[in-house]
């Protein structure tokens, strides 16, 4: 409170028609407030929020030189904005204003009018005591860089990138595998319409590659993220491909000639091998191979080889490539890091890893896929077509020892598998389930169709899979044991092949991405959305959004819809181009700050960074939500929320009690 603008307070008591006046003696309140220090004028009026009411304030400010205004009327949640605008139009900073709620919290809830009047006087005095310490506040605009970073190149990341780019914004898509496509690229068909995954996805992948607005970084990782909404400085680490993307034509000769043939193919879920120089699958985008340094004879065991160099017509092979770091500024970040399948070897009773004919769902997808290890023919390891196959639902899901949640997609993909088996092999299919969950559009109809195709649905969670057979003729087969709860029989079904419908868990490395971005994760490792219903794609860190399974298990339709939603939020931010910071946010006085970082520990929005040079904490105004946790944690009150300072709050308390 500088000396030249010595407070001159105007107080206005509203009748609010019949809502305040009869119960609260507004004249008496005005009279008593007039006696308080620094109160220049105290009036009462029938409808303060009406135009004449507001004009009264504006005129008083102009004529009487008021520099503080108090209105005692309804709840500030109703008309604080209205009166602040009035004060502003009179040329006074809108934050030189305070309301006293004498309607909802006095006249409407107090029986005796004498008591109501006393309470009103006390609350108005409190408002006067507070407004005395008010400071002029401004909101600030922060410009937003018109570009988006998308982390993860699966269907979610691709969709988010395409929608954002189609809105005309620069998009940087980072994918750590050699090609975009994610898990969906591994699928053969997708439920419920049995579209072929490649048919609906490859066009999108090509769009991403060719879209002028999208810069694609595959075989790369996000290395560091700094800054805040509108101004994120992102460092991307491009791992060496040892193949020059510009020169390579994707002819594939190097991959045929490479002598190292026995590397386990991650893309084929370990069911087949690949060479040291490889693309994960034929329709890879970009169609440029990478050299797996560990297994390459030259890079890994520094032996002499160079077969690929010899056969590459465009001389694209370059063993000297080093990791490159690219830094760029983006306005928004969309996380689409996806999921990975739960590893069922922790459930010994299912024998995964011990019995060769027990497959996980992703492995079975590869068996079905034309580019898979068996070129789409569903055959056992011995090459024969299975005559009877069991599909086991809820493997690792809905189980407090593993994943207590339902992974939402396994019932539907299990039924898809049953259909493919019936169609391709005519094998007898036994599907063991607890509850069929088919909630989406055409989902129940798909379940019905699979029933029609003669799939045997047994309601019972599989207790055990064993290679002990009850009758000798089933030698070499696996026996699936479960209680068929609807017929109260324990069924022991000899089968040739078992498919474990494993649940979903967060992708490997999502913990690091969470730490890089400051986005917290729930008990199961999925990223926390800001609000499950009101802000499902936002995170507590403004400017960072979530798309797809990284926020929780979901099927492809929901993933694509959510990705478009996340892109929508990002576009809204970029389109506006500016972010107006709140006025009532925290400020840390560098002279008082002892550098103890208690405020940083308390801040849930990672909105305070530590200036190592000056050894003080500094608020990032664009991220601060004004919650005040830092103010309460700071003993010296170096940290304080503007408009809720110690003086203001204690001024209010003191005016009530003394």
């Amino acid at each position: 409170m500088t000396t030249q603008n010595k407070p001159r307070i105007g107080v206005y008591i509203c009748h609010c028609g019949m809502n305040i006046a009869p119960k609260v003696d507004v004249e008496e309140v005005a009279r008593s407030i007039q006696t308080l220090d620094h109160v220049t004028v105290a009036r009462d009026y029938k409808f303060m929020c009406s135009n004449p009411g507001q004009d009264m304030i504006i005129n008083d400010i102009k004529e009487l030189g008021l520099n503080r205004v108090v209105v005692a009327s309804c709840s500030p949640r109703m008309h604080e904005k209205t009166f602040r605008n009035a004060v502003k139009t009179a040329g006074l900073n809108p934050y030189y204003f305070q309301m006293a709620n004498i309607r909802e919290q006095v006249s409407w809830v107090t029986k005796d009018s004498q008591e109501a009047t006393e309470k009103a006087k006390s609350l108005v005095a409190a408002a006067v005591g507070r407004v005395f310490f008010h400071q002029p506040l401004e909101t600030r605009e922060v410009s937003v860089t018109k570009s988006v970073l998308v982390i993860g190149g699966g269907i979610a990341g691709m969709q988010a990138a395409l929608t954002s780019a189609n809105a005309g914004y620069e998009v940087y898509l980072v994918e750590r595998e050699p090609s975009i496509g994610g898990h969906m690229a591994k699928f053969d068909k997708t439920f419920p319409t049995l579209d072929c995954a490649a048919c609906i996805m490859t066009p999108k992948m090509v769009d991403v590659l060719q879209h002028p607005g999208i810069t694609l970084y595959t075989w790369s990782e996000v290395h560091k993220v700094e800054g805040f909404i509108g101004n994120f400085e992102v460092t991307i680490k491009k791992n060496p491909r040892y193949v020059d993307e510009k020169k390579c034509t994707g002819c594939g000769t190097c991959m045929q000639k490479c002598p190292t043939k026995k590397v386990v193919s991650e893309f084929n879920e370990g069911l087949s091998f690949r060479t040291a120089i490889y693309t994960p699958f034929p329709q890879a985008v970009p169609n440029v191979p990478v050299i797996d340094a560990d297994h390459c004879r030259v890079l890994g065991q520094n032996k002499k080889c160079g077969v690929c160099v010899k056969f590459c017509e465009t001389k694209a092979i370059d063993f000297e490539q080093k990791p490159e770091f690219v830094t760029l500024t983006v306005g928004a970040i969309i996380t689409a890091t996806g999921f990975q399948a739960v590893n069922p070897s922790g459930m010994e009773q299912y024998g995964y890893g011990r019995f060769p004919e027990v497959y996980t769902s992703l492995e079975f997808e590869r068996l079905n896929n034309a580019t898979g290890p068996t070129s789409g023919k569903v055959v056992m390891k011995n090459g024969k077509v299975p005559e009877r196959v069991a599909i086991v639902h809820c493997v690792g899901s809905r189980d407090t020892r593993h994943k207590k949640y339902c992974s939402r997609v396994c019932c539907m993909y299990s039924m898809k598998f049953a259909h493919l088996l019936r169609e391709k092999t005519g094998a007898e299919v036994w599907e063991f389930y607890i509850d069929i969950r088919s909630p989406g559009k055409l989902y129940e109809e798909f379940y019905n169709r699979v029933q029609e195709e003669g799939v045997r649905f047994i309601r019972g969670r599989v207790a055990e899979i064993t290679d002990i057979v009850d009758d000798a003729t089933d030698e070499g087969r696996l026996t699936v044991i479960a209680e068929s709860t609807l017929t109260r029989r324990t069924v022991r079904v000899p089968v040739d092949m078992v498919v474990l419908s494993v649940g979903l868990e967060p992708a490997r490395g999502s913990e690091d991405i969470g730490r890089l971005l400051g986005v917290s994760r729930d008990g199961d490792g999925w990223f926390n959305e800001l609000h499950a219903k009101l802000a499902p794609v936002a995170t507590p860190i403004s400017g960072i959004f979530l798309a797809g399974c990284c926020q929780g298990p979901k099927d492809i339709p929901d993933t694509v819809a959510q990705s478009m939603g996340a892109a929508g939020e990002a576009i809204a931010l970029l389109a506006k181009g500016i972010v107006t910071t709140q006025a009532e946010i925290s400020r840390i006085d560098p002279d008082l700050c002892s550098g103890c970082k208690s405020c940083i520990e308390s801040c849930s929005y990672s909105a305070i960074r530590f200036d190592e040079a000056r050894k003080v904490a500094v608020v990032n105004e664009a991220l601060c939500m004004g919650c005040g946790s830092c103010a309460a944690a700071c003993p010296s009150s170096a940290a304080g929320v503007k408009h809720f300072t110690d003086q203001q709050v204690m001024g209010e308390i003191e005016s009530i009690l003394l």
Partner: protein
Amino acid sequence: MVKSMSDFQPKIIALVCNWCTYTAADLAGTSRLSYPANIRMIRMMCTGMIDPKYILKAFLDGADGVFIGGCHPGDCHYINGNLKFKKRMAGMEAIIKQFGFDENRLRLRWIGASEGPEFQHNMTDFIQTIQDMGPSPAQGIMVL
């Protein structure tokens, strides 16, 4: 229960969070749920913003009771501001108790934005509790 010391009118400071308890208070108002006029409410953006010295100042300046109203855990507009304040409560209670203020003169309750009736009940109940307890020991003595 006969109203003891009927002439004693407690003065109670209520520090409440804007998003939940203050909204519930407004709702109690619009639903015309009346309660005694001893409460003086101060609007904070979050209970996580309440500095311990506000509570000490209230008691030393003669408040007979201090009520803190916040959002239910999990509903906090700022994720976990309410839990930050709850962690300080134990320490505050120990301090005021040692200096002769009954621990129950300080009360923390979660009141959601839609809980108008609960708000009314909490106000009436707390006022009655303080009424029974009688004036604060800091009343009528010179606090240095």
